[in-house]
């Protein structure tokens, strides 16, 4: 007559307690010569320092990518990557794209139909025909 324990591992609920930003790393690639990198280079010169200071949890890497359009590549904790091409974009548009990648979770884009996603059981419980009384038997 003993109780035995079934092994289980706690599950993460990011934001309950601590919040971990899911974007680990942002890599900014630009081309020295081509005109499509004009806004990107201006962003690197004027905005990137502030952006990096505001986001200490994101590793920021800058490297040239000659003869190609400029891109921003975000790496995420779920081991996925997101890449955004920022050719011909102005400085603020590049900043918007960088913020978009920073705020992304890294998951594939998916449609969320339910208003609430939770690991907790329903507070209301599941309707049971054996416990409802009278007319409520037929009310789900």
């Amino acid at each position, binding site marked *: *007559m*003993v*109780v*035995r*324990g*079934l*092994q*289980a*591992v*706690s*599950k*993460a*609920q*990011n934001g*309950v*307690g*601590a919040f*971990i*930003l899911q974007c*680990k*790393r942002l*890599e900014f690639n630009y081309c*020295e010569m081509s005109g499509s990198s004009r806004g990107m*280079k201006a962003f*690197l*010169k*004027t905005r*990137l*320092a502030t952006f*990096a*200071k505001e*986001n*200490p*949890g*994101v*590793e*920021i*890497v*800058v*490297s*040239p990518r*000659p003869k190609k359009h400029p891109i921003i590549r975000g*790496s995420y*904790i779920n*081991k996925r*990557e997101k890449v955004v091409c920022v050719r011909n974009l102005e400085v603020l548009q590049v900043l918007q794209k960088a913020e978009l990648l920073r705020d992304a979770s890294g998951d594939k884009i998916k449609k969320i139909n339910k208003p609430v996603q939770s*690991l*907790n059981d329903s507070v209301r419980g599941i309707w049971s025909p*054996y416990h409802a009384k009278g007319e409520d038997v037929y009310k789900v």
Partner: protein
Amino acid sequence: MRRVSRSTWDSLAVPRRCVCGNPIRLNDLLSSSFSTSSSSSSSSSLPSSVSTSSPSRPSSIPTIRSPSSLRPRASRPFSTSSPLAVIPSLLPTQSAKLAALHGRLGLPNKYPLATLGRALIDPTAEPEHHLNNDGLSNLGNVLLGYYASEYLMVQYPRLPYEILKTAMNGYIGPNALAAVGTEWGVEAAFAPGATVDPGLLQFNRVAPGTPLYKIQGGVGFNIPRKRNKMVPNFENNPSVDAELAAETPEMKAAREAQRPGQDATTLQLAMSSFVRAAVAGVYLHNGGLSATKEFVHAHVLSRKLDVDKLFQFEQPTRELSRLCVREGFQQPIARLEKETGRYSRHAVFIVGVYSGEEKLGEGQGSSLPEAKIKAAISALKGWYLYSPVSGVDLPSKTDENPLAKFMPAVIDVGDVVS
């Protein structure tokens, strides 16, 4: 040619290189650019060093790695006094990965990067005790055990000891802590070495096919699956019993004399010891027990663990009966409350278990014994999972201020033993 994935490059610790062959890490630049008050020179140094890293200027790296970038500054904790021997090529203060991990965890400036870097070095990578995370990990283990056990004992005062141990393992066991570390975004180096970025977890990996019982903390025997199917390859991999039975007394003595886990460990164990060491760093640098408690509750105990799903009863009806005897309740009686389709394929019975007039629990099953057992389990869980609604304090409340107002929790007599 197959493209080498970027994560592979990261794990090999090959830094991303520009055309000139020099890695550029902007956080390194920022460490110097924000350190001094002379913002005119620092703000201009950043774009110039970025834009000058063209193929024609391979000598741009000395400007990035100039000694001024190592100067401590007020805004971020980039000061270090003890460089680690395992990483002579790159100081912890020079690693963008490490600084990013520090920022991601929201650690304060008091927490130096050198400590976080040391927490990432497993004893299997660096046997020197003052350079690896062995001591930090032990300290963190004590702290985690303290906060997890007091939390569970106050939250569920009647939890049986076995379930308490399982719940502790679910919160602060190696599996759970390894998950915490992975969700912090910690990456592991392919192999420890001098060229590895200090922001990567360094440990010596176990050779493929090594029995798990030879690893410290490892349990059982890892049988490689044949072509990813659930068919163990017994011919090439005898069971642990067979291997243990086959060894001579000398071999057994040699195995027991050898301290396990000295030379290699698994990613999971290394990651969990990193998380423990990081907790110890919070205790050492962030302001003692109160900061540690906050950190442990935010990162470890805020996770979701269904304690009610950890129970496995052997004889629930008998245990419930013993419980009622011990507590002086009337003997439990199972009563059929509702039923449907008794002679059909899908019979449903609702059984409630009563002690006198009091209903202790209820179960539903497709047969009468099943419903009765489920009702007993429900009643036992109702007893064991009692949780005070509010107003109860954790004992650690008085750690900082011994005179703080303290509301003690229930102390239960324990689980039903017979």
